[in-house]
């Protein structure tokens, strides 16, 4: 596990020091060239941990911008139920959503004309249809049926299965000064290497973009005669860390 980049008196990298994960001892390797490719945040961590007299704020950080302006994806989603899709003849819909359908951003002209309250766009991922059911009760059928038994349950599931649709927006964030990572002054990992501490804040741009996603998806669902069954940000729906992440960030 790499700890830091070693620097010579001339300010050039001379190698790296790392913790041998088997012996837990610190080892130094000399090199003519050092390439940092430890992924975005881990690379920043390595650079910030590489402090020396030449680089008191971390290597190659004279601007102080290492670890600054972290960006994430703006995400929000809405699920709906469309009665017009009830009782369709059984068909194999594997792959109709997800991989094969996708809505690119479409409001460039409105943004150019200054009519939109946020910058940048998002795309829409959509799902639905009678695909192979995953683990669970036929795609949340119990939420609509409220349970059932025997022949009637089978009939009801055949009726409603495939009538659920899902829209998820994935948009671009504007980098801001309040979103950055730095070295935590106290916490270290199991190798004794200081860890990252994150600061993160969505700006009005992202919040308005997420609201636009939610309104658009609701509009599509209601225009098709359906109703919204759940949406991200709804505490009843939040279960996974991924969902929690988007919901804490964006509440409608």
């Amino acid at each position: 596990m790499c700890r830091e980049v070693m620097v010579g008196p001339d300010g050039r990298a001379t190698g790296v020091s790392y913790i041998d994960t088997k012996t837990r001892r610190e080892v130094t390797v000399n090199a003519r060239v050092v390439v940092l490719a430890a992924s975005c945040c881990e690379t920043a961590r390595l650079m910030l941990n590489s402090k020396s007299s030449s680089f008191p704020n971390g290597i190659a950080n004279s601007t102080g911008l290492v670890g600054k302006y972290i960006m994430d994806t703006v995400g929000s989603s809405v699920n709906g139920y469309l009665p017009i899709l009830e009782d369709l003849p059984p068909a194999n819909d594997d792959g109709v959503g997800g991989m094969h359908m996708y809505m690119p951003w479409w409001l460039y002209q409105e943004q150019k004309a200054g009519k939109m309250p946020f910058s940048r766009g998002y795309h829409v991922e959509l799902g639905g249809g009678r695909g192979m059911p995953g683990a669970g009760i036929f795609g949340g059928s119990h939420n609509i049926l409220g349970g059932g038994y025997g022949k009637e349950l089978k009939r009801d599931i055949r009726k409603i299965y495939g009538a659920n649709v899902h829209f998820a927006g994935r948009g671009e964030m504007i980098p801001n000064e309040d979103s950055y990572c730095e070295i935590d002054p106290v916490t270290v990992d199991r190798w004794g290497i200081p860890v990252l501490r994150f600061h993160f804040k969505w700006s009005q741009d992202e919040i308005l973009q997420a609201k636009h996603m939610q309104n658009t998806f609701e509009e599509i669902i209601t225009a098709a005669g359906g109703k919204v069954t759940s949406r991200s940000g709804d505490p009843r729906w939040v279960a996974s860390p991924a969902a929690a992440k988007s919901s804490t960030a964006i509440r409608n």
Partner: protein
Amino acid sequence: MGGWQVPGEPYTSAPGSGFQWYRARMLGGRTNHYGRISLRMGPLRFQAVQPRRQGLRLAHYLRRSGALLRQGRGADRRLSARRKAWRIRPTDVSSPRPRRAPTSASSREFPTNSRFPAFPRASPFSPSRSTAGPPATIAPSAGAPARSTPTSPRPACTSGLPWRREIWSFAPAPCAAK
């Protein structure tokens, strides 16, 4: 592989931030993780503007998957032959077997006079490569030094355009600033 929390490798979040960091722990040296998907980053992906994008992209994938596609076409033919067998009538048995329609996915149908040849002839990636080894002659062109060693992976240039290693394609050199 990976996770929102990795045992023994914590991170912290400033009060009020609630940031969650997904650490990817993947096998295979060239994978890059974006959200839930892992893209194979080929050189073409790093071009912001790219002429004849679709053709190039298609060629890029076909080069890798030519063998797979050929297998797939074979399977399709067998399947359709089986389907036809159901409909066949005794009087049709003696009729000649229909000729195979040309398939658009065939590498030989890519335009060879294109400015961006999809399949440089005798490229080491091309399915139509002869077994005699790499070609001995290379068309000279400005900015493209002759291949230095026979084992160089650079395909032969048939279009007169320089091979641009950074985009892994034959293309005109970028305009010099005036």
